[in-house]
């Protein structure tokens, strides 16, 4: 098809009046041109994902770059204890935010991972037929609840539950946000863990069963060890989901810009800080730019998490 570009387009007779051989062989009718156009259009669509991820990086990096190079000390950003961008002189120490993010994500994983793994094993290995379909639909519904609704639940329901159960004053704290984020991250962990279990060949299960293993023994001794890379990927993506969450955590964490000392302290995360302060920061100001630097930090962390998870699931299988 490539060499046909040297031929004449169809429909034009050559000077002698008789159609030449090259002309007779030319297949470039309307369908060919439509096909060519469709291929080009579809290729552009295929490139769009690369285009956008590149654009996100470029735009966020350039908005924060000038400030990051000239006036920001990376040491202060990563280890400074005070996040006071609006007082004079401003302090841009993001350690409280990083600590808050880490604490809340850790609690979220403590909540999500056991629940999600048990659900994945039950749905993948024990449940059958209609029960399995229903459980999967309910997991999807859990994933579909919008984050702002989760935030409302944290703000009104989880807050009073925590106050009553643990007899603490502050109901909007690390524990509250952690439970909310754990429940939000659990469906994605469940889905990916279930895929990892499904990837273990049935022949291995049958071999173990033929030796007299019960289905729990099959799961524990055969399926889980083989699915380990996929399960790690599931946890990683769950972490990515939890620490990237914004609105729910802003509403449920209490948003206090200090390092939390217990799970009953209020805390602030990187994402929530950007959401809370972007509206107030004047465009182009130092404060505005430092928020983009935080965004760049988030971008790199999620990029690392996603690449590692992708490598665990895909790369090792090819190797």
């Amino acid at each position, binding site marked *: 098809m490539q060499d046909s570009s040297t031929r004449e387009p169809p429909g034009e007779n050559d000077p002698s009046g008789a159609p030449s051989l090259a002309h007779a062989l030319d297949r470039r009718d309307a369908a060919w041109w439509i096909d060519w156009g469709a291929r080009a259009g579809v290729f552009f669509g295929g490139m769009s994902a690369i285009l956008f991820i590149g654009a996100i990086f470029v735009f966020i990096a350039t908005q924060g770059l000038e400030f990051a190079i000239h006036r920001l000390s990376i040491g202060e950003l990563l280890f400074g204890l005070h996040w006071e961008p609006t007082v004079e002189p401003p302090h841009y120490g993001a350690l409280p935010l990083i600590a808050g993010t880490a604490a809340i994500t850790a609690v979220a994983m403590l909540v999500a991972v056991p629940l999600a793994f048990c659900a994945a094993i039950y749905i993948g290995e024990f449940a059958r037929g209609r029960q399995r379909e229903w459980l999967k639909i309910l997991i999807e519904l859990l994933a579909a*609840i919008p984050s702002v609704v989760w935030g409302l639940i944290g703000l009104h329901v989880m807050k009073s539950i925590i106050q009553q159960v643990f007899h603490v004053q502050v109901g909007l704290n690390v524990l509250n946000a952690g439970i909310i984020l754990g429940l939000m991250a659990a469906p994605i962990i469940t889905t990916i863990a279930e895929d990892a279990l499904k990837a273990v060949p049935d022949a291995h299960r049958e071999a173990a069963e033929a030796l007299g293993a019960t289905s729990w023994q099959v799961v524990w001794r055969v399926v889980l060890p083989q699915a380990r890379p996929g399960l790690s990927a599931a946890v990683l993506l769950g972490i990515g989901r939890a620490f990237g969450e914004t609105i729910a955590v802003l509403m449920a964490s209490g948003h206090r810009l200090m390092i939390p000392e217990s799970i009953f302290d209020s805390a602030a995360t990187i994402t929530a800080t950007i959401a809370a302060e972007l509206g107030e920061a004047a465009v182009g100001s130092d404060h505005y730019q430092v928020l983009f630097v935080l965004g760049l930090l988030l971008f790199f962390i999620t990029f690392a998490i996603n690449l590692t998870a992708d490598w665990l699931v895909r790369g090792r299988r090819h190797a």
Partner: protein
Amino acid sequence: MSLQAVFRATPHEARSFTVQQLVRLLFLAMTLLLLLPVLGILAVLVVEGAPGLSLDFFLTKPRDNGAAGGIATALVGTIWLTAGALLLALPLGVAAAIYLSEYARDNWLTRTINIAIVNLAGVPSIVHALFGVGAFVHFMGFGKSILAASCTLAVMTLPVMIVATRESLQAVPKAFREACWNMGATRWQTIWRIVLPNSGGGILTGLILVVCRAVGETAPIMFTGAVFLREPFPNDVFDKAMALSFHLYTVSTQVTDVPAHVPFAVALTLILVVLAMNALAIYVRMHLRGRKKW
């Protein structure tokens, strides 16, 4: 020795069996514990929010910063934003899915595209918001508008569209395409006449999931086009608009003296939309899967 004695479980086997039963029960209990919040949240929203729902609530505009009146402007704004996101994400997402499923070979470019899709889906929503502010609001000069917010939502929901469509296209058997090529059809004719019609509503499922996501997101729109309060309905894509999700955020955190049932009523509306969309997606999937003959 009687037959029963021969086939009776040894103590070791009996113990394995008991363990197996207990483990199964434990896992079922954990699964239900995970799913309990779904029912709990629905129950809380219905109990607290249902008294606030009425036709008037949907049809009147908010008053007193959202403390009184209805949610008409927020509903209309959400429809504008979602429709905009859909118009942009649909063609791009379907094109990308067709490219990946029908044209792409297993080479570095395809792997790069797949990594880009995974990362685009994994980038935190607030980073999408920063991108929207930098790219659409300021660089492209759309200002804070429905257009900028829709573009941001479209970029964010693009991976959902691509993945759902690609999966359904890949489920069409290869033999269908080969039969069509053998008749002398071009690639595009094959895709248009054979692959897309037989993809079992994959595009529809993707579309529904995009709507679901776009309706529920708050962070990407709160700096790119959604506003706290706006009296008139939007007229064109350069207007700002209220949105259901952002309205829920403001009435539950920013406005004082809101009656307790108002945030729950807004949340109930939001979740009803999302649930209806999900139910539709599940129905489409099951209905079309049932019709498949291969």
